[in-house]
């Protein structure tokens, strides 16, 4: 159908496309509703990864015990996605394809090194999430391709996580968000780190400067504050919501808080195990 209908749009949860239709920002000739397509909504945890069907509702992710235990940062971050009424309909695949620069699930996929799977007339292909955003609200999907699932590698159970964002009101689009994952050894030395910022550019920005800079160091508040300063040098969007210099200042604060939360949880987990 995707290949045969001119000017079509796939409709997932409709929490972004429907407003665009209502306001005539998007005027497709054909809408293909994915809500009755079977087999696109599921959450499966294998030993090393979680595979989420593209049409899985955000609410089902929010209340999934498997996600809570295997990938707790997703449970924490998804509460910031819109409101209960929109999470009841909104899907993870729809959010990724819409690719809003401040979307929480988009930032998480960058943070977690997710792989997305798309199906088209030529078959199936996997796209590493780092290559998925190719422009402002534009993904690497071809016009005749459909996202089917998202695969996320799991971190060890002792990892710590933190997700924080600054928005003007609860449920609003974040001006800047920060997410962090940390893995420590028994002496609280950092073995592995992942840090991502949302809302600062057209796509999430992995803070590789921080990730490599803190490896081998001891976890602690001073280190987080020092490491987060790297966010003051990034390029950031400048729009009606915030200037780029304000976004940089927010990014420093958000990154520090995300690292702090992740560090505290990692230390607590180590004591428990």
């Amino acid at each position: 159908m995707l290949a045969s209908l001119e000017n079509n749009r796939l409709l997932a949860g409709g929490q972004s496309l429907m407003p665009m239709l209502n306001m005539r920002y998007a005027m497709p000739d054909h809408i293909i509703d994915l809500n009755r397509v079977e087999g696109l909504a599921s959450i499966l945890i294998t030993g090393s990864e979680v595979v989420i069907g593209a049409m899985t509702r955000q609410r089902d992710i929010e209340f999934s015990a498997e996600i809570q235990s295997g990938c707790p940062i997703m449970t924490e971050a998804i509460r910031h996605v819109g409101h209960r009424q929109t999470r009841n309909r909104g899907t993870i695949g729809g959010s990724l394809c819409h690719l809003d620069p401040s979307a929480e699930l988009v930032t998480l996929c960058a943070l977690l090194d997710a792989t997305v799977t798309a199906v088209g007339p030529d078959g199936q292909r996997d796209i590493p999430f780092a290559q998925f955003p190719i422009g402002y609200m534009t993904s690497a999907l071809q016009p005749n391709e459909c996202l089917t699932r998202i695969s996320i590698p799991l971190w060890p159970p002792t990892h710590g996580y933190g997700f924080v964002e600054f928005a003007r009101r609860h449920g609003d689009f974040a001006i800047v968000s920060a997410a962090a994952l940390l893995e420590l050894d028994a002496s609280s030395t950092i073995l592995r780190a992942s840090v991502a910022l949302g809302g600062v550019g057209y796509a999430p920005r992995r803070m590789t400067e921080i990730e490599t800079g803190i490896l081998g160091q001891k976890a602690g508040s001073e280190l987080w504050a020092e490491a987060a300063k790297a966010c003051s040098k990034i390029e950031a969007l400048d729009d009606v919501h915030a200037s780029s210099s304000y976004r940089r200042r927010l990014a420093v604060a958000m990154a520090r808080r995300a690292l702090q939360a992740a560090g505290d949880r990692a230390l607590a987990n180590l004591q428990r195990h």
Partner: protein
Amino acid sequence: MDQRRITLDVNGSTFTETVATRTTLADFLRHQLRLTGTHLGCEHGVCGACTVLLDGRSARSCLMLAVQADGHQITTVEGLEASDGTLHPLQQAFADHHGLQCGFCTPGMLTTLIELLRDNPDPSESDVRIAISGNLCRCTGYQSIVTATLDAAKRMRMGQTV
């Protein structure tokens, strides 16, 4: 205009209707079924006034097409009271605590909070405020809505039903 025939359950009654594919669920409920209790404020998913229950889950009826509701069960504000007109405990608590003034946001507040009280019979004030964070009210300042909801939760825990 492209049309489809749909069958759905609204407030316990089955309707089979022919509807234009471009029609939103909200417009279908209001114009075709004449259930004007569902209000349309912003029509792009921000104000929450059009919230209905879709198979028991709260959803914005302005962000769904009527054809997508084919085969599903919808509850609107008209479906909350008993058949003899007795108000739902939540509606009664709204009346008792001045949980509404102009009443525009009320249908969305009620449907959203019905879902909350079903999933969480003993919510905290913060739980209630988070639940209605996607519903705009310009009259009450939310305080009386929160008070009414906490009181309704208490009444329902003591066994009051519709």
